[in-house]
């Protein structure tokens, strides 16, 4: 599987690093007591600290620090017991302080590792460079008034984790896998909801190209891309653009670019260039952040089972394939659902129902697994009804469809609709005898087994006559005996 891109002068390798801004799940902001909830009336979740009124002092939210440490631990990263908050200075209408409180030289979390799940069960490790805490800015709306920009400071001061990867990725697929895995981990540990549509997770993408094995090329940074798909598209466009520029004898200029979703192209944001001089310095309003090692250990001990651990356990204890296990851990809620269905039952069957019929039904209804009309307990009962021969697998599909519509209990549905499998040999034999007697043509065709395919036709007829309720194994056996 080659990840190289071919150009006029040969093969090129794309080098990708990602900076992800993940909004910390917390009740109140990083340095104030205002609420963080999404969608409130403008400027109603703003304290005088967030509005940068003179004389206001920031006081750090201990839980936001805990969330950052928890995330660092889940990324197997170094936790820095001593870190510093700095001021990153720039002017913009939605940044009332004139600076963002961030961490520059001494972040709270250092180097870590994230394992990507690629196609065909392949994995790849990508390094984490650092994770730091910082304030989010307010929100500017440019389309509400012909000549004015409207500013809402509700988001101003909400805690963000900036998670910076090493430039370890070599294709848009790997970048996509990185974002998905990071999002899964954040959701498992509850430090960020990972909702890219609402902007609680956004990515800046660093892209450069080089000849395989050669020195790193000059990189461009694509700012604020807000979906996995767009990140992948932006990388493919940008890599091709850079290769074309170089092969046409040009040079790549280090710059900030924007991904235009409608056109599918990246564009230079020249206006941002000078703003790169942020003149960081330690924030005199905040003392260094010192962590107690015992407190860090406590957070570590409280970590839930992480997706990779869970995946390994599902493969080991339930015998799931790498692929199925990967699907089951992709969202914490799917894993919980699957484990409830699989408990004490055939795990392969449980997995087939969840990834097959259930996912299809959820997709069709456009709902998530937490809103599933079929509860895990009910799906489990349905599997039990197949296992104890109360219904056939085919009837189970019909019962499942009814469960999707009504949310009902499978045993009650089977009872009410009279779908119980018929295992009464005498009754099945009656149908079999009748069909054999009525269809001498097909009997002749079967020719005592010389043409074994014809038996399928007989099975179909018997099932039809019994409205699908005859036990298929018994039907087969009886037919073979009688058609001899």
């Amino acid at each position: 599987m080659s990840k190289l891109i071919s150009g006029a002068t040969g093969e090129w390798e794309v080098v990708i690093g990602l900076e992800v801004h993940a909004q910390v799940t917390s009740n109140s902001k990083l340095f104030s007591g205002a609420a963080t909830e999404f969608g409130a009336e403008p400027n109603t979740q703003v304290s005088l600290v967030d509005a940068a009124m003179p004389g206001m002092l920031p006081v750090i939210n201990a839980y936001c620090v805990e969330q950052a440490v928890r995330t660092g631990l889940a990324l197997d990263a170094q936790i820095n017991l001593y870190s510093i908050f700095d001021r990153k200075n720039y002017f913009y209408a939605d940044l009332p302080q004139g600076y963002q409180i961030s961490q520059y030289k001494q972040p709270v979390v250092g180097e870590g590792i994230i394992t990507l799940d690629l196609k065909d069960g392949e994995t790849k490790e990508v390094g984490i460079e650092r994770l730091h805490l910082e304030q989010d800015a307010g929100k500017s709306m440019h389309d509400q008034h012909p000549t004015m920009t409207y500013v809402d400071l509700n988001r101003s001061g909400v805690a963000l984790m900036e998670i910076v990867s090493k430039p370890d990725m070599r294709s848009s697929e790997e970048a996509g896998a990185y974002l998905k895995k990071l999002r899964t981990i954040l959701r498992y540990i509850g430090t960020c909801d990972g909702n890219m549509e609402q902007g609680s997770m956004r990515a800046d993408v660093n892209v450069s190209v080089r000849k395989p094995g050669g020195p790193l090329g000059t990189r461009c940074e694509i700012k604020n891309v807000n979906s996995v798909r767009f990140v992948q598209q932006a990388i493919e466009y940008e890599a091709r653009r850079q290769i074309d520029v170089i092969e046409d004898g040009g040079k790549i200029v280090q710059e900030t670019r924007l991904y235009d979703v409608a056109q599918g192209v990246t564009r230079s944001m020249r206006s941002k260039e000078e703003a790169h001089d942020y003149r960081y310095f330690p924030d005199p309003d905040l003392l260094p952040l010192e962590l107690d090692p015992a407190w860090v250990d406590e957070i570590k001990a409280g970590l839930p089972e992480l997706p990779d651990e869970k995946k390994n356990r599902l493969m080991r204890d339930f015998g799931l394939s790498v692929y199925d296990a990967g699907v089951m851990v992709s969202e914490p809620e799917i894993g919980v659902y699957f484990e409830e269905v699989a408990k004490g039952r055939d795990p392969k069957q449980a997995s087939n129902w969840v990834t097959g019929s259930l996912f299809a039904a959820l997709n069709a209804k456009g709902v998530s697994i937490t809103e599933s009309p079929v509860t895990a307990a009910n799906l489990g009962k349905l599997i039990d009804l197949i296992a104890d021969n109360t219904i056939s697998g085919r009837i189970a599909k019909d019962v499942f469809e009814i469960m999707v519509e009504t949310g009902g209990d499978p045993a009650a549905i089977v009872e009410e609709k009279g779908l119980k499998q018929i295992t009464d040999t005498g009754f099945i034999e009656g149908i079999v005898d009748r069909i054999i007697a009525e269809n001498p043509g097909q009997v002749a065709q079967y020719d005592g087994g010389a043409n074994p395919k014809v038996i399928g036709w007989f099975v179909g007829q018997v099932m039809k006559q019994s409205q699908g309720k005859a036990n298929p194994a018994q039907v087969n056996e009886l037919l073979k005996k009688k058609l001899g």
Partner: protein
Amino acid sequence: MSVDTKTVARIAHLARLKVPEDRLDPLAGELNQLLAWVEQLGEVNTDNVPPLTSVVHARLPRRDDVVTDGDRQADVLANAPDAQNGFFAVPKVIE
């Protein structure tokens, strides 16, 4: 360390300070005097001294994660030169 007039003009721009052309040279001179004075610190050997970010020997105070503030839109907007529909209204800024 010293600054030239070009650097002074750049710093002034980054800080959104309006400095007339004829003030740049004198300002550079004043800043260079300040820098030279601070540079005396270079005489002290700081090889094994970590950077000092605070002179206060105290633990950073922490806050609990509870909502204690907000719902004061009128206060927040009180000093704004213009506010409309609960938003700050500023001359259009767009990329």
